[in-house]
């Protein structure tokens, strides 16, 4: 694939006030102050920052406001914020603080028309559908609350349905691969890519440079989210982007 555009997104899972990292979205380890990590990725040339509040749905709270407010003072690239956004007012509050997009999962699984209510006000480009899935015998099942709760929904049915209600991108997280460094779930990416014309962000499983290439070779995958490979400094943003460039992708360096 020649000249395909590719973005590299730093994913920071937060359990306020800390940056954390787990495996399969569980077994949390505290890594430090999220804003410091985010600023480091900004200076490394990352294309976007994703803050995900990992306990917000569980505790019905939203604790990222002050972190976001501080971060946008120093970091002039797009921010996507997710976790615990339950209403139009929650979404508006996050966007007003300086986020560009909100990532929605649990609340819209419970009430899909919330997507329409939010996109009518903010525009669909401000909404990222966050989908957490686990492999089943047939296909993938959608989970909510950071991979804790089953929904019975099939991933393709769900994404198709959500697309009709106004979304700009799909953040597709494989809970099975998350934190395992075993590569993105390419079958999952291909399956969802066939069913939508939206940009897809691959998330969960980045282990090495070729994982990035493999994921971005999937038709509608235009971005990859990377967490612990950056947090533990196994790779720099520049290293990943140069590798993509060598493999024919168009990246911002």
């Amino acid at each position, binding site marked *: 694939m020649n000249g395909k555009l590719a973005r590299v997104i730093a994913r920071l899972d937060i359990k306020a006030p800390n940056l954390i990292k787990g495996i399969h979205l569980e077994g949390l380890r505290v890594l430090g102050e999220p804003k410091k990590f985010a600023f480091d990725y900004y200076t490394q040339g990352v294309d976007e920052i994703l803050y995900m509040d990992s306990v917000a749905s569980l505790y019905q709270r939203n604790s990222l406001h002050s972190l976001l407010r501080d971060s*946008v003072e120093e970091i002039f690239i797009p921010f996507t914020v997710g976790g615990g956004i339950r209403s139009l007012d929650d979404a508006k509050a996050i966007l007003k603080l300086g986020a560009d997009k909100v990532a929605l999962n649990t609340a819209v699984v419970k009430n899909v028309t919330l997507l329409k209510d939010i996109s009518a006000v903010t525009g669909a480009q401000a909404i990222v559908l966050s989908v957490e899935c686990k492999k089943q015998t047939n296909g993938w099942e959608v989970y909510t609350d950071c991979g804790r709760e089953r929904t019975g929904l099939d991933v393709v049915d769900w994404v198709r349905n959500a697309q009709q209600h106004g979304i700009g991108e799909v953040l597709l997280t494989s809970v099975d691969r998350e934190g395992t460094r075993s590569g993105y779930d390419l079958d999952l990416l291909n399956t969802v890519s066939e069913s939508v014309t939206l940009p897809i962000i691959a998330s969960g499983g980045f282990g090495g440079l070729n994982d990035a290439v493999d994921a971005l070779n999937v038709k509608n995958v235009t971005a990859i989210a990377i967490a612990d490979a950056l947090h533990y400094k196994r790779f720099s943003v520049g290293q990943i982007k140069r590798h993509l460039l060598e493999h024919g992708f168009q990246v911002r360096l």
Partner: protein
Amino acid sequence: MQLVQVIDTKSNNLSNVLRALDRCDVKYQVIQFANELVKGSLVVLPGVGAFGSCLNELQVNGFCEHLVTHLAAGGKLLGICVGMQALARSSTEFGFHTGLSLIDAEVTRLANSESAPIIVPNVNWLPLDNVSDRFKPFAGKAMYFVHSYFMTNFRDPHQCAAIVKYSGIDIPAIIDSGNIIGFQFHPEKSGEDGLRILRHSIDLLRGI
């Protein structure tokens, strides 16, 4: 120094644009109504979301009528994203809408045809191409785009000061008619190059 006035169109990126201006050491005031326009000021029009709701906000607060006379009397204008699209004659986003008609062009959807499938919205960092002399220092610099509609059918193609290439379409990225500059991308979200082009454009409009 020419006063900078930022129109509050209830757009979500207002605070981001203000922070970027702060970072560029540009002093400004935020205004809501056309009667607050100061003769000869440099007006910044941020915008995110739908064309229709942006224009409606401008209409209700008197700007549709007064921006034309403001520019004729030495005022300047910098439009960002939907704030740039608002300068066009019309848009087909969610029905037909009339624009400010300050730039003779139309806003239309990024086409998604069978023969040439396009991923919409265009959410990408894209390098500026075919850059005019006034923006030469930014040739090849990547800026952040997020949009589903774009400006096209310019009566005067020279008003397009830079393009980006996306899925075979030349998308106007910067428009420049002397006293009006518009960005399809978000300079406030395009890193250090974004801040530099924002500052550069304000200097150009001020004639510095």
